[in-house]
């Protein structure tokens, strides 16, 4: 599946660069929204066909809430490491790291403080989303299902959810959605906090 995803993505980038006229760009957001809504509806249909999902999730309990916490903590730790690698301001680095795939929001909040840091945040989180798309099938197969949520981070509730569901289990779809919501909410809190500390 990774190869197919990579091929679709590469084909898209090449089309965007050389084939499709720029005026189409304004409509691509709507196309993605429609596709995403359809996919989420079909994920719901998949979930409804399995009567055991909620009983198995009940057994796991509130422990699942630790998954977004660990995902966020891992990203922030990565931010600290990057601040050492690039000799950057610690809070600036943490602001970039706490974007967690939500590239539009993190860049919008950071850019007024530093245009360069805002661009780093934008590009970092674009790359993070692309990495998630490409590697979720491999992570599910080689490492574990829950780690796919860590890779997707904020997109685990929307664009990443269909890929996670397709490569893991139906139980994961519910956990992924909940985790994605929590991580997305944390982005709206963490990025402004770290930007305020720069």
């Amino acid at each position: 599946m990774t190869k197919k995803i990579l091929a679709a993505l590469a084909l898209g980038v090449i089309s965007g660069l050389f084939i499709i006229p720029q005026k189409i760009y304004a409509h691509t957001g709507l196309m993605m929204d429609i596709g995403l809504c359809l996919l989420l509806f079909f994920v719901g249909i998949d979930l409804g066909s399995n009567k055991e999902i909620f009983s198995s999730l009940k057994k796991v309990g509130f422990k699942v809430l630790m998954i977004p916490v660990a995902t966020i903590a891992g990203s922030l730790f990565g931010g600290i490491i990057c601040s050492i690698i690039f000799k950057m301001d610690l809070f600036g680095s943490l602001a970039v790291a706490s974007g967690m795939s939500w590239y539009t929001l993190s860049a919008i909040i950071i850019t007024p403080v530093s245009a360069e840091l805002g661009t780093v945040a934008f590009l970092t989180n674009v790359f993070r989303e692309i990495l998630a798309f490409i590697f979720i099938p491999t992570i599910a197969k080689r490492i574990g299902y829950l780690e796919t949520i860590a890779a997707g981070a904020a997109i685990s509730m929307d664009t990443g959810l269909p890929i996670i569901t397709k490569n893991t289990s139906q139980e994961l779809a519910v956990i992924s959605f909940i985790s994605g919501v929590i991580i997305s909410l944390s982005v709206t809190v963490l990025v402004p906090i770290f930007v305020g500390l720069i």
Partner: protein
Amino acid sequence: MALRILMYFGLLAVGWFISSKGLIHNNLMKKISGIQAVILFGLIYVMGVRVGMDEQVLSSIGKIGLTAAVFAVVTVAFSIFFVYLLRKKLFSDKRITGGSDD
């Protein structure tokens, strides 16, 4: 954002409800995986198109591309590592954990 989350939740809930009530024809149920795959690859293609058309990405990729790439890899790697440690400590149900035991 709240409206968006509600909409996603609503779509999942409506799909779950009609499917759990047996309102989806068997023939359609069999085709759902294929339909999902087509839409999914369409979505990834459009995402690629957006990246290819985005002037902000294109203009900054040469200058700060490497920094951003390192940031992306390091943050993803540590998120995965932290969840991996958590999974080993707290989770055992194979339907949820998947993956290997080592």
